[in-house]
């Protein structure tokens, strides 16, 4: 009934015939499915918070340890997202535009962070970046301590976020005709002008989508981070770990308070980015 009401509102109350049929059915199913899979589990989380008093909630999330975990989680996720936005399109560009030996293998390699169990990724990265690891040794030699610091956490988040950016940008680059670049070159554009004025504006929406995906994934990441993080309270303790710790201590109220705050913050951030993106798209009217 509710669905029908929404539909009739959406279609101005008129029963108009459409060329593409099944609007009611597909919207109904979408709503049902989203409720079942996403909304109901998340709303129980919210309902559970109502069983807490405001003081309980506030004292949990305002404790210095929790606040520092928020700062670390959002900070490292944002940094990793930004780094992926710079290097992801470069990887995509090389894969789309050039032919080189073992290209298919390298292409498949990009998906590895998707497929690899995160714990394995975490252990591998830790052994590489530890003080006696292959990379960690040399980084330490130039004064950078990577494992068990926020730097290590960021490295793990870059690792798991990279495929999101590459895989969203790649098809857009593939669809970008070489004609366009040739036209720009023959109109007198330098290589740099072609990149900034012709290619970047076209891939910008995809890059932004890749950023959102990589950022969102990083916020909730657990497995790959906890090994390399070292998990020192106030220093390298991420929010998801804090939630688990609280659960292990049977402090459900605490766990839920942190989880809901994370949820709300991520949702608002992603919403802002999406609004920004649709503004860009409207301005560009890319068909």
């Amino acid at each position, binding site marked *: 009934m509710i669905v029908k009401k929404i539909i009739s509102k959406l279609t101005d109350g008129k029963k108009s015939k459409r060329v593409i049929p099944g609007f009611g059915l597909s919207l109904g199913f979408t709503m049902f499915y989203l409720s079942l899979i996403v909304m109901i589990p998340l709303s129980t989380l919210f309902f559970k918070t109502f069983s807490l008093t405001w003081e309980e909630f506030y004292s949990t999330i305002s404790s210095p340890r929790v606040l520092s975990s928020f700062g670390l989680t959002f900070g490292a996720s944002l940094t990793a997202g930004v780094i992926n936005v710079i290097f992801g399109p470069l990887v995509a560009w090389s894969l789309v535009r050039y032919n080189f030996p073992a290209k298919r293998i390298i292409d498949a390699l990009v998906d590895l962070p998707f497929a690899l169990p995160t714990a394995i990724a975490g252990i591998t990265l830790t052994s590489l970046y530890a003080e006696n690891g292959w990379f960690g040794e040399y980084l330490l030699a130039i004064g950078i301590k990577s494992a068990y610091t926020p730097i290590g956490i960021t490295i793990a988040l870059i690792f798991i976020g990279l495929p999101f950016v590459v895989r969203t940008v790649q098809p857009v680059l593939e669809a970008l005709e070489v004609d366009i670049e040739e*036209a*720009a070159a023959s109109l007198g554009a330098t290589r740099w002008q072609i990149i900034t004025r012709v290619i970047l504006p076209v891939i910008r929406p995809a890059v932004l989508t890749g950023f959102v995906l990589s950022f969102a994934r990083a916020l909730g990441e657990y497995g790959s981070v906890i090994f390399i993080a070292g998990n020192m309270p106030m220093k390298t303790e991420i929010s998801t770990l804090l939630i688990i710790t609280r659960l292990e201590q049977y402090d459900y109220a605490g766990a839920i308070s942190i989880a809901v705050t994370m949820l709300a913050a991520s949702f608002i951030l992603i919403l802002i980015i999406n609004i920004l993106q649709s503004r860009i798209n409207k301005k560009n009217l890319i068909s």
Partner: protein
Amino acid sequence: MSIEVSNLTKIFNGFTAVDDVNFQIETGELVALLGPSGSGKSTLLRMIAGLEIPDNGTIHLTGKETTSASPRDRNVGFVFQHYALFKHMTIYDNIAFGLKVRKAPKHEIAPRVSELLELVQLRGLEKRYPSQISGGQRQRVAVARALAARPNILLLDEPFGALDAKVREELRKWILQLHEQTQVTTLFVTHDQHEALEIAHKVFVMNKGKIEQEGTPAEIFDHPATPFVAEFVGENNFVEAEVVEPHTVRWGQFTFRVNGYPTGQKIRIYFRPNDVYVSSAPESGSVNARISKTRFKGALIELHLVIETDKQIIAHVPKGVAHSSGFTEGAEVFVQITEYHAFRNSEHTIDESLVTI
């Protein structure tokens, strides 16, 4: 001399796309590069624009050696078959692109763009995006964009190839008009002979990476230099025969006069359907024929003529003549071939031609 190309060669993975090509184009000329797909005409154009680097030979543009200069240093406008407009920019920004990247003074850009919008008859569309205008309009924008920075040379690669017949027709007239106004040296690639013959001052017919013939549209059409040109440009009948006695080829009751071939030489004779003269009464030198089929071709009627039961040729006659003379299926008529071209019958070599009437 605006474009001067010598010994130009381009090889892609062992395939010779352009094979030792030489030509010159005078300033202000409008030239068509005509040829079938894969004849190397686009590659030739792209080398002139600097979008491909030749393997051999040189290119001079307005007297300067530019064989391997970068595209932006050539001052050449290039128009692509599929427009290649910047989809994220308005029509205004598309046209202004060449001026902006060349750092033209700001106060010059707006007047120049509006001048070009006027020239391509698209005033009022400057705020639209390429997705919001029609194919013909897009191609006009592409031409305006290419002309914005006042290039010495305008190159068009199958510019009307993606458009429907009616719009092509319009744009052909428009490009002629545009050339009269701008007088910019123009070289365009096409596989459409009507387009080439109608617009160009001069036509280069290309085949297998080489220029087979170069001449005015009339020269190309009336005096094809090679069998390829005879077959590719316009419709043609051809018959194969042997030189039986000095200067004479016989094909059934038809006699063709040819010079310069020894007896016994196999010869190919080409003649156009409109050079077949059909009449309802016998005349001196005419041959009996029967109309086996007629086909409607607009202003013309195509007659399929059977001669001596086993030989078939095609003739075109004006519709009025066909009606008044009673040229219908099954009618007995008399045929003369008024103009023809003879070539040595060898598939792969191109010989000097010989034309007699």
